[in-house]
């Protein structure tokens, strides 16, 4: 399982959602949480952390965001050799088949639908750990 030191990046254009997600991650003992408002800002954080040898280890990203959406970020991440295996969880209010399919085709690790229950992150992170890190 991921440890409390695991570096997690939370991306959402709504501040309240970032607070909510960070709050739920903290109740699971995760301490190293960074945040970004959109995909573009998130990618800069991924690059910065990678350059100083403290890479982000899990991304939790909203879908609909201005500047760069979660799906655009996922595409950019998967095209970059440094991040192509990075666990990437999409969080979205969109749940239709086409959306799920397009994220799956781009290599999303897992998918959380809003609204989500408090225990959702625990389950999804465990699932993603088994898939990418076990």
């Amino acid at each position: 399982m991921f440890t409390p030191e695991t570096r997690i990046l939370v991306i959402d254009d709504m501040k309240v959602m970032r607070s909510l997600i960070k709050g739920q991650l903290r109740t699971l003992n995760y301490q190293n949480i960074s945040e970004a408002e959109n995909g573009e800002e998130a990618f800069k954080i991924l690059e910065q952390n990678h350059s100083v040898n403290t890479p982000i280890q899990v991304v939790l990203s909203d879908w609909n965001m201005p500047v760069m959406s979660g799906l655009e970020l996922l595409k950019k991440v998967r095209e970059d050799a440094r991040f192509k295996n990075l666990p990437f969880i999409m969080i979205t209010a969109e749940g239709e088949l086409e959306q799920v399919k397009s994220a799956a085709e781009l290599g999303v690790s897992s998918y959380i639908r809003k609204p989500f229950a408090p225990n959702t992150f625990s389950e999804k992170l465990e699932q993603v750990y088994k898939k990418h890190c076990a």
Partner: protein
Amino acid sequence: MGFQVQKNERYLMIRTDFPIITDVEVKQLDIILKAHTEKLPVVAFDFTTIDQFSPKGLRQMTLCLSGLSQNDTQTGFIVSKGLANKIKEAGLDRIIKCYSAVEEMLPSNRASGGSDRATDFLNTTLEAVVFTMGVSASNKCAPGKVFLRTQNNGPAFDVAATVGLVSSDFQGSLILLMPMKTYLNIMGRMTGETYTEMVPDIRDGIAELLNVILGQAKMSLNERGFQIKQAIPTLIQGGMINLLNAPATRSIVVPFSSDCGDFYVQITTNAGNAAIAA
């Protein structure tokens, strides 16, 4: 053993007597479906004799359904309760719709006239409100009596967000309105903090709640042909609040009582397509 195809003007039905569906059978299904090049509004898979899908078969089947949905074809499985439960347990019930009979799938049996469509829209939206509030904020809520909004009976609110509704049936707005006290209680439950006044951390929370409500409702409504497009909600602030208080369009308001206090959902339809607020 094999697949039998039955077709009429309303749907294409594919039946099988296989006891289990694996990826091999799904490939056969794919060939059968590709042979039907004309537009198929409804494709029903009668899998009542089947006890289970292999995991690979189920995965292949979701891809097969995805191909059909790109052509706006409505698909569904006619299955036993046991298999419907297995599909639900696999988390695929939002992709694979299960029915007990093909008649349940047909649009004319679900929502026929404009009035039925309006009721369907309203009920689904209200269900989405109750569900979202319950899961996001552990806030149990219930809708009260719906009323037509005039200039004199608008609900008291301090915080509001709106989102455009663009669908095959109508255009309008979905608006969520709350007194400050209710809003602070809900935000407190969502984030685990205590708020006594509006602070920047929670300023956009009502727009996010509305976004989730619409996403929830949209998914269900679009399965029934509403073709609602998702838009990004905006906060209603400053002078926009006065516009809300003097509605020029037909609007209905649904008051909700909840553990966190009262709040309101307003549905406004543009002139010329006022089925919802009629």
